[in-house]
């Protein structure tokens, strides 16, 4: 047998590189983190992305606007409904299409339901990253109710294609209306459980408090948006700052925390779930009658020009930049992915932390890998 001996210098070497991923349980997606460590302290971290690149932006240049409708939901599969409606809004802005008020309300209801589902994954998966398995299963249970509701009207559970230019595909039915009411009541009763299960947990607090602080200055220069930004005390939410759809008609708060650490980001997500419930309830109370889709041509032909439309997904400000050359095929579609900028900010905040904290920071920023890679 040939046994290789390692010399003392190699054994005593303190600085080394460690590969987290591409298939690591905590990266919920195919992502590779190349971490340079000194003992157990991170010196440098380099995310290597692109494993789930499908070329959505190139695909857009080879098909008409309607054919691209199923794609946006596949960029961020956790908040697909929001992306789907966002793409429709961008094309409507480019073509100057009016949307009926009832359709706007339905868009808000479905988007907020989807936001809750996405925040449950973000927050509970973070808790699981810290070793707590129960909250993950509880959150999954609540999320499952939402997926059932959305499946009832949109036909699919994750990658929705429910929005249409000038409205939505079909009206909501009584089953959806009643089911959403029941879901709101059920979830309101469970907040107390989550509070007791997670927020008082000493291990959870010790692992997240003061870990991975994003300063306001870093957030600005790295372009961080979404709950990660609001955890740093900046009150910026596209729904309020740059109102779109029917959001100006609803009364809701933008929760912020000053600390900027992992705990703050988690708390912002949980507080946003409550605000989303308020929005849905108001929308259901004042759901206007009327059509859900305006008359638009079978194929839209936008005029020459370009437009940028931004909206708030569960992870931050998404932007669709569409350049049209006056034909039925888009000349260029660029998607501003919030996770892309948020993940890069992580390379700034990780050095100096322990390796175990990298998992916590990664979970608390809550990135979706297919959205980064597009």
């Amino acid at each position, binding site marked *: 047998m040939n046994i290789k001996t390692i010399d003392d210098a190699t054994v005593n070497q303190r600085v080394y590189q460690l590969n987290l991923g591409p298939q690591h349980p905590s990266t919920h997606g195919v992502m590779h983190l190349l971490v340079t460590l000194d003992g157990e302290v991170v010196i440098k971290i380099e995310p290597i*992305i*692109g494993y789930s*690149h499908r*070329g959505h*932006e*190139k695909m857009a*240049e*080879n*098909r*008409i606007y309607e054919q691209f409708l199923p794609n946006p939901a596949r960029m961020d599969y956790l908040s697909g409904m929001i992306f789907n409606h966002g793409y429709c809004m961008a094309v409507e*802005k480019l073509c*100057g299409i009016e949307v009926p008020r009832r359709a706007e309300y339905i868009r808000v209801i479905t988007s907020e339901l989807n936001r809750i589902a996405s925040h449950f994954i973000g927050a509970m998966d973070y808790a699981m990253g810290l070793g707590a398995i129960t909250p993950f299963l509880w959150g999954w249970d609540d999320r499952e109710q939402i997926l059932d509701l959305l499946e009832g009207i949109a036909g699919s559970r994750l990658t929705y294609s429910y929005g249409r230019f000038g409205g939505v595909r079909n009206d909501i039915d009584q089953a959806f209306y009643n089911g959403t009411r029941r879901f709101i009541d059920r979830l309101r009763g469970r907040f107390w459980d989550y509070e007791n299960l997670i927020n008082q947990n000493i291990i959870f607090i010790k692992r997240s408090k003061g870990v991975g602080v994003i300063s306001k200055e870093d*957030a*600005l*220069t*790295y*372009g961080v948006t979404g709950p990660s*930004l609001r955890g740093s005390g*900046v009150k*910026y939410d596209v729904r309020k*700052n*740059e109102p779109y759809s029917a959001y100006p008609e609803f009364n809701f708060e933008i929760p912020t925390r000053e600390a900027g650490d992992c705990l703050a980001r988690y708390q912002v997500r949980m507080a946003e779930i409550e605000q989303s419930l308020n929005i849905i309830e108001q929308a259901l109370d004042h759901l206007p009658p009327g059509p859900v889709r305006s008359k638009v041509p079978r194929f839209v032909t936008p005029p020459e*020009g*370009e*437009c*940028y*439309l*931004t909206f708030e997904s569960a992870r931050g*400000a998404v*932007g669709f*930049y569409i*350049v049209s050359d006056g*034909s*039925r*095929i888009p*000349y*260029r579609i*660029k998607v*501003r992915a919030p996770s*892309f*900028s948020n993940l*890069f*900010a992580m390379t*700034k905040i990780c050095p100096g932390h322990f390796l175990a904290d990298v998992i916590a920071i990664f979970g608390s920023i809550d990135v979706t890998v297919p959205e980064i*890679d*597009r």
Partner: protein
Amino acid sequence: MPTAGQKKLLEELKNSLTQAVPEGQVEDSDYTRTGCHLEVRLDQGGMRRVAKVMLDKRFYLETITAVDFIDHFELVYLYSTYYQDVFRVITRIRIAKDATPFSVSAIYPGAIWLEREVYDFFGIRFQEHPDLKRIINPDDADYFPLLKNFGKTKFTEEIDDILC
């Protein structure tokens, strides 16, 4: 209708930007149609001077992208702000196909990845970039996928003719 805060900011920004880039055109943009309030048009360079002004005014860099117009590229920088009323500034820079524009990553570190992405998809090499390499496509790729001539075959052109 722009609010009073937006109007004030618009005037301030216009003055600072015309001072910083006197060779460029600083114009109002129709927000309801384009989603931007102010548009800066430049030839070849000046992105770093614009970026400095925007950082002074506490804007964040939303994204950098490029558009391939067959005979030239257009580099697009989008800035927006957290702190005031909604305000978006778009900077379009027309560059030649073989140009090497300057990187803004010294001003906005977040641009490191955004510029890597532009290089990855369009082959635009940024000068003074700390780490210019592929980001999403494989390291050994010899193509730039978002160029208009990439992936064009006789078949796809026929499909385009049918669709248009």
